[in-house]
Structures are given as C-alpha cells and as structure tokens.
C-alpha cells in the first residue's frame, strides 16, 4: 500500500490539491456556513477530475503498461483500485480541510440565519461530507475510466469537464432537477427537510459502480 501511495500521490500533486482549497477558501466568498458546501462541491469535482485521471494512464505514458500486461489481471486491477482509493481518500481529507478553511478565513455566520447551534453545524458538515464523498468518487472514477478508455488522461479530463459544464449550469439544473449530478449544490437551502438531492447522488453512485465494473474490461482490451 505504501508503494501505491508514493505512486498515486507524488508531492507536487498533494501540493496543488492543498493549494487549490486554500485559494478557493480565500477567494470564494460565503456569508453563511450553509453556503460552504455549495462553494466547495463543483470545484472539488474539477480537482477530482484532474487528480484521478492519471491513476492508470501514467503506466501508459511511461511504457510500464507493456510490462504490466504480463502481470496477473487481478493484481493489476487491485493496484488500480488501490490507487484510486488512495487518491479519493486524500481528496476527501482535502475537502474536509477546505470546509474548515472557509470558517478560518471568512468566519461565516452560522447556519442559514446566523444563529444555528453547534449541533446543527456539525450535522450540516456531515451532510456535506456524505455528499462530497459521492461527488469526489464519481468524478474521480469517471475521469479515470475515460482516460483508460482513450489511453490519454487529457481526454479523461476533457470529457469529464464537458459533463461538468453541462450539469453544473442553469440548463443542467433545469433539465435534470433533483437528478442532477450536482443536486447537493442546487438543493433548496431554505428547506431543511428537502432531501430530494439524494436522487442526484444516487445517479452518481450508480454510474460510479458501473464505471468500476467496466474498468477491468477496458484495461484488458486497451492494455
């Protein structure tokens, strides 16, 4: 596992991911703490897109994939999944730190009214955390899948970015509604009991599972 960590998380990558959330928490203005999740979700999806695109394609560009072909398929797949998991875990920690940094740098008013209790703040954080797990997982898996399919990480990033632009827009909000991939960001903030955004996250989970199931076939065929 330690070897996979060194391969999947080189220092420059870690640095840019941390730098990304630091800058984001400095420049993206929020007035209330309820806005932090919205401020983070879509940009973190872009970070996941770029971060996970090379989980396997680095093997192709370095020509190591020609050697890896000779290794048992199960082992190869295990290594790819481990790398994705490591990258996702790091991004998750990064997203949690980012949440805290918004409080640190911008000192937003608590809750929607500015007078929420600490308990509801913690609850709000956990809801954000659950949503961001799905968001990061989905966009990371998607970019990795596209990169492997086209044997090029830039296609993975570009393809993912196209989908990001479509879904993270007013058109996306209008057409997909609660089924939007960014349903958490588009949810009604005023209604605490509105959990219809979970539909969108279910879509993400389903596509993510599909991507994970398809990956071994793509690796086998495309190498």
């Amino acid at each position, binding site marked *: 596992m330690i070897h996979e960590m060194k391969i999947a998380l080189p220092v420059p990558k870690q640095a840019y991911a941390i730098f990304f959330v630091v800058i984001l928490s400095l420049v993206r203005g929020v007035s209330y703490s309820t806005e932090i999740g919205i401020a983070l979700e879509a940009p973190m999806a872009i970070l996941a897109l770029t971060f996970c695109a090379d989980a396997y394609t680095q093997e192709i560009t370095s020509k190591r994939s*020609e*050697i890896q072909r000779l290794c048992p398929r199960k082992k190869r797949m295990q290594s790819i999944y481990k790398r994705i998991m490591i990258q996702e875990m790091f991004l998750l920690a990064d997203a949690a730190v980012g949440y805290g940094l918004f409080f640190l740098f911008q000192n937003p008013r608590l809750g929607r009214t500015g007078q929420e209790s600490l308990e509801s703040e913690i609850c709000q954080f956990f809801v954000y955390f659950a949503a961001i797990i799905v968001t990061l997982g989905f966009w990371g898996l998607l970019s990795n899948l596209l990169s492997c399919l086209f044997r090029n990480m830039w296609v993975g990033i570009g393809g993912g970015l196209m989908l990001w632009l479509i879904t993270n827009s007013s058109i996306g909000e209008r057409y997909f509604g609660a089924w939007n991939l960014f349903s958490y960001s588009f949810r009604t903030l005023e209604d605490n009991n509105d959990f219809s955004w979970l539909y969108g996250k279910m879509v993400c989970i389903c596509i993510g599972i599909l991507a994970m199931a398809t990956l071994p076939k793509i690796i086998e065929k495309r190498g």
Partner: protein
Amino acid sequence: MGIKIEDLTVTFKNKVTAINHADLEIPQGIFGLLGENGAGKTTLMRVLTTVLSPTSGTVTLDGIPYREKNFEKIQKKIGYLPQEIDLYPSLTVQECLEYMGDLSGISKRTAKERIGYYLEKTSLSEHRRKKMKQLSGGMKRRVGLVQALLNEPAFLIVDEPTTGLDPEERIRIRNLLVDFSEGRTVLFSTHVVEDLVATCNQLAVMKKGKFLYTGNMKELLEQAKGHIWICRAKDETMAREVEKTYHISSKQYVGDELQMKIISEAPPQIPCSACEATLEDAYIYIANQE
C-alpha cells in the same frame, strides 16, 4: 520448447507493414535479433509479449498458440524489458522492484531474495535506497532488466538491454543473460553487434519486416567469407573514389594511409587483400545483398 513463428504479418492502421510474412524458430538459449532501426524488431517483440496482435500468421510458445484464451498462460512465462521504460520515479530501486514483484504475483520473501541476488549481479546493491529518478540512464536500464528477471521467466525478451551502459557493465549484463539462459529462452534484440558476438550462437537478421538470415553465427560468417577486403588509400581523393564504388564497413588511418574495409560480392578492381569477416561485416554484407 521455444517459440515458433509462422507466416507472421503485422500491418498497422496506417497501412505500414512492420513484419511481412516472417517465419522464425527460437530455440532454447540466447537468440540474437539484429537489425537496423525500423526493421521490425520491436514490433516482433511486442507481438511475442502479447502487447500487439498480429494481422495474420501464427505464433506458439512451448506449443501454446497465441490466442486470447491462452494469453494469461503465456504471459506468466514471459519476462520483458522494453526499449523505453520509465520505472516509478518516486520509488527507490528496492521499492520499485518489490512493487513489480508483487504485481507479478511473487511472494514477498521470494521477491526480496531475488531482488538482492539480481541487484548484486547488476552492481546495483549500493544504489538500492536511491530513488529511481536519481539514477543514471544505464542504472535505470539495469533496474529494468532486474524487473524482467524477477519472476524467473521461461522466455525472456530484452530489447536493447545494454543501451547506456559502460563497457564493464555491458560485459556484466551480457554474462548475466548468458547465465540466465540456461534451460530458458532469451531473445536478445540489439543493433550492437559486439553484444551478440559475446553472447549468442543463434541469431536472426531483420530488415524491413523480413528475416534476411536465421541460423548460427558461424554460418553467417561463412556466408560473408571471401567478400570482405582491405585496401589502402593514399589520400582523401582516392578514398572518396573507393567510397563511391564500394560499400565501406570501416576506415581508419594507419600511418599516412587510410585503411578501408570493403564489402563486395566480387573482388574490387583496386589493389586489396581478402580479410576475415567479423559479425558486423557479415551483417552489412547480408543486409545489402538485395
């Protein structure tokens, strides 16, 4: 035992034919593959490692045909050092090899033992704690070779293993390959003729996707016998004239005169004497026979 290639053709999507109806048998021991750049050597090796599927023809390894259903069985028997490879720059030599060993399905204990053994054999023991990105080109090449040997394959394919190595290291690597070839098949591709002279008995010469020669080295040298000549040019003008007419395999100043080695089917029409053919001469003779 060994590899059998029959009527193999590889044509790429851009219609370039890299291998053209080639037949070859690679027996046990070290088998040399010699050819100019673009001859099709690397393409052949990519087919043998199952990276590339042939357009037509058949390949068998120890009697197992190269078909998708057999790939896993075949892949287990192969070790491969590609021409270009960039092993994990953020890992140390030891870590990199342990990782490759784990990927190959070798137990940790066995991998550690083999890594120690082969690092010693390739003079890399003292560099085992260095990161891959800190190594010189020659050292990286040697680590690449160690990874190919780790699962002790029945069939080892090495593409230019001695590139970037100093003379002493080249000798070490060649000897390592010879030792390793006992009871196994090693396909040694290079365009460094000296490497083949020092290691192989059997070889194939490739040009434009075809085998110009397959057989043992002695017979290849025999074919060139009587076609290699030495002449001496008194000045540059004479040397240029000779070069225009004949194929020159080497030239060097001996005293005031320029000594030239001519490869010619018939005796040259200038004062010269016949000489012994080296593998390099024989290769050039064969390659320019068409």
